[in-house]
């Protein structure tokens, strides 16, 4: 703990915006996609043309409800939209449709079970809104171009209580939140593509005191590590101010990750008055019990539930289970493999130790040519004795580059396991003759000595000997040797 943290206790709250993974935008039929040519995904509604009207996307509301249920929040019986008004070139209507007084979710908690120390962080609310467009400033020409593809993409803004007490807490909370959102197919949560964005409120107070200090809002945070760094920096900045007899100002600061420092964006007094009022184009809508029940029924399993199932039903270790669960695409891959081979333990093993060993440099499992069918086939081939583990490993390495079926590789490499008893008996006998000391040790009960003889047999069979049969033969021959 730094000396600053011995004297000061940070109080941190996060506002996280995630883009919802709907097919279409929040209030129009335009596709919700990343990376299309500028302004290709627009229509009169999201362009804010005069006369166009918004129609709410029910799927976005369902994903928000799914989130609310997952975090144990309260789903509003009636939810409504408000206009948040400000002028900005990327905001074609001059207001953003958001939820001020009637958020769809209030309350709920997030517990850092996978990434932290199990701390529970309370949520204040989660509400729906529409994303703004993106301005591109051309520094040289001085002109600004606006891309409205992003304009109108559904967002869920998740506001935490000021329950976080360190940069590490914030990092764990963000990861935990992302895990929930990704596991539940609510959002991709890809900070690089902007599908997850985060603002942080930081204040500090002398340890042992309860009143909150004046808080500073940090913006322009582009990675989870950046969030951590910015919080650490802000804690030190505020402590230095206070210790020098100064005062923390209520203000918004922009984080510069390259320089590792923040700069003033605006003081509190120049904060805009958003003039929220209920959007008259969107009547309040009732969220009936039946709808909530239907959303609950179709929601995927929560990470903690999944952990319990993997350890108790599948018999995976806590560690292995967490490795799988913390990455939803790996988890999906694992589930598919298990469904095909019906052997979760071996499936997990082949994925986490063998396949991961081949994947280098941040490759995503979704881009790997080896698919769950390949892994399931290898598991089966080992199980039925066609391949031993060593050969299966060799096949996997080949498949990683050229994903033809295992059987083709087995044939091509001549890897079919030698299980022919007579041939193996002769080899084991030879091995025993060549290793009298090992035989003596074995007779004296030193079981490890078998390695030398089995190892010889494997070498003789070019690694294709069936280890189970070899061990069996050795045991039999020992009785008469």
């Amino acid at each position: 703990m730094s000396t600053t943290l011995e004297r000061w206790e940070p109080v941190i709250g996060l506002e996280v915006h995630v883009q919802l993974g709907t097919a279409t935008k929040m209030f129009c039929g335009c596709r919700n996609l990343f990376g299309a040519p500028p302004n290709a995904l627009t229509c009169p509604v999201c362009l804010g043309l005069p006369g166009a009207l918004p129609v709410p996307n029910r799927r976005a509301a369902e994903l928000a409800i799914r989130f609310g249920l997952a975090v144990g929040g309260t789903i509003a019986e009636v939810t409504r939209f408000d206009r948040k008004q400000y002028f900005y070139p990327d905001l074609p209507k001059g207001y953003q449709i958001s939820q001020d007084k009637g958020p769809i979710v209030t309350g709920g908690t997030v517990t850092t079970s996978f990434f932290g120390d199990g701390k529970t962080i309370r949520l204040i609310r989660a509400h729906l809104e529409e994303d703004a467009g993106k301005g591109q400033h051309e520094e040289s020409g001085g002109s600004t171009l606006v891309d409205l593809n992003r304009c109108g993409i559904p967002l869920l803004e998740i506001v935490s209580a000021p329950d976080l007490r360190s940069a590490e807490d914030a990092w764990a909370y963000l990861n935990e939140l992302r895990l929930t959102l990704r596991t539940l197919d609510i959002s991709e949560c890809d900070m690089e593509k902007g599908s997850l964005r985060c603002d942080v409120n930081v204040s500090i107070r002398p340890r042992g005191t309860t009143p909150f200090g004046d808080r500073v809002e940090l913006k322009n945070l582009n990675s989870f590590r950046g969030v951590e760094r910015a919080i650490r920096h802000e804690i030190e900045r505020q402590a230095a101010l206070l210790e020098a007899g100064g005062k923390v100002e209520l203000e918004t600061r922009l984080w510069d990750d390259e320089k590792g420092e923040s700069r003033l964006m605006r003081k509190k007094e120049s904060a805009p008055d958003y003039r929220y009022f209920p959007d008259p184009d969107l009547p309040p809508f009732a969220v009936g019990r039946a709808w909530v029940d239907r959303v609950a029924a179709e929601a995927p399993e929560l990470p903690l539930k999944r952990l319990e199932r993997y350890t108790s039903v599948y018999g995976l270790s806590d560690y292995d289970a967490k490795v799988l669960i913390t990455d939803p695409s790996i988890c999906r891959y694992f589930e598919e493999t298990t469904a095909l081979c019906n052997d979760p333990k071996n499936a997990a093993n082949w994925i986490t130790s063998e396949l991961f060993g081949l994947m280098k440099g941040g490759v995503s499992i979704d881009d790997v040519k080896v698919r769950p069918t390949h892994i399931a086939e290898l598991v089966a081939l080992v199980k039925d004795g066609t391949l031993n583990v060593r050969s299966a490993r060799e096949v996997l390495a080949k498949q990683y580059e050229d994903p033809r079926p295992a059987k083709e590789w087995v044939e091509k490499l001549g890897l079919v396991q030698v299980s022919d008893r007579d041939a193996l008996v002769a080899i084991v006998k030879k091995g025993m003759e060549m290793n009298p000391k090992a035989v003596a040790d074995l007779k004296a009960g030193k079981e490890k000595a078998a390695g030398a003889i089995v190892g010889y047999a494997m070498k003789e069979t070019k690694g294709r000997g069936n280890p189970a049969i070899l061990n069996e033969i050795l045991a039999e021959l020992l009785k008469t040797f």
Partner: protein
Amino acid sequence: MTGPLPLKAIADSVRSGARTSVDVATEYLDRIERGAALGAFLAVDRARTLAEAAAVDARVARGEALPLAGVPVAVKDNIHAVGFTTTCASRMLEGFRPPFDATVVEKLRAAGAVVLGKTNLDEFAMGSSTENSAYVACRNPWATDRIPGGSSGGSAAAVAANLAPAALGSDTGGSIRQPAALTGTVGLKPTYGRVSRFGLVAFGSSLDQVGPMTRRVEDAAMLHDVLSGHDPKDATTSARPHAPTAPHVGDGVRGLRIGLPDEYFGDAVDSEIRASVESAGRALEAAGAVLKRVSLPHTPHAIPTYYIVATSEASSNLARYDGVHYGRRHPEAVDIASLFTGSRSAYLGKEVKRRILLGTWCLSSGFYDAFYDRALRIRSLLKADFDAAFRDVDLVLCPTTPTPAWRLGEKISDPVQMYVADILTGACNLAGIPGLVVPCGTTGQKDTRLPIGAQLLGPAWSESLLLRAGAVIEAACWDPSFVPSFGSAS
């Protein structure tokens, strides 16, 4: 010639082949040319309209069943019709060509109607005289030195002078009904949510409705039936199916209880107007209705409430005119702030700016509770007034305007005087209920006869009843085939 034909007769003649849609459109385009001095139209495109008409003739020839075959309709210039600009009578939207039809225009065109042109209005529908048009003042065909009312003044003048057999208007606080009353035409403001607002440029979104402006009650019913219904593009439209009103226009009023609200017959209303509306009441009575006095006690609060709600919503709805994405952009802007303020200062008119400022102020932090929120609470009281009245009566009959049409320039420098002109119409929009105006007589003053309109208000979804009662008043008190000779000012 017995004067202008009902819409049904026009459609019948086109369907039967007696006339072509092109003939009908040509007749009205010629009339528009002769009546250009009225300033009723902001955009007319003869070639475009005749091409539309020819397309209707082709559809008739193919045997398509078109209820409005060849009926020319003028469209208020805050409603999108592809092929025409939508300017809202504002410099800000000069030259703006909408890429889509308003749902109401789409429905009209699907029914065989032909868009005759775009009519004049107060800029962004803000005004009661059509003097706030940034392009040209509009004149009342009954006395061309007088205003036609507003904001749908162009549509009203066009129909009154028979430059168009029918028109679309929009009504936020009386913008269909008040000009209908001042020009001797029929205007219907439907129940909020009955007609789609998609493609209507928003002013006060919780108040705006599109409705027909016609010479005859039966014409209004016919158009209303085409325009009504749920629109998946407008979340505020009702899913409730629309029951056609036109077949019942002649059903009469026998046994209907009709209320005369005390608050609408006060001294602020000209005695001639009161007397004329009372005679319309007697006509209803003679047809078998029962008249009763009723009270709508919160009526005096309607005007301030209306102006707070409407300007608050307008301040937000008009924020999009910032010079960035479309419309006019100030040429001297040097940065984004001067682009916003320069464009808005240069291209929005005085009254529009006044209302934006008022609305912005009402929604501002520290004022919201005292103004906007309080207005919403009074709005529900006004609604409760009507709910209570409609437990005792089926409809309410009252005057539409406190005075007949006034002279151009008479009130333009006094916005409050102008706002008071909406005193009898605003509550209807705040309550979301339908209102119909039917001409019921004229002032008998010296040199000038000016029309008077009776206003019928009913509970939500009661358009059919309103139109039935309107038809009774029309038959007893008015000659819909009379066209004023608008050649010279009186």
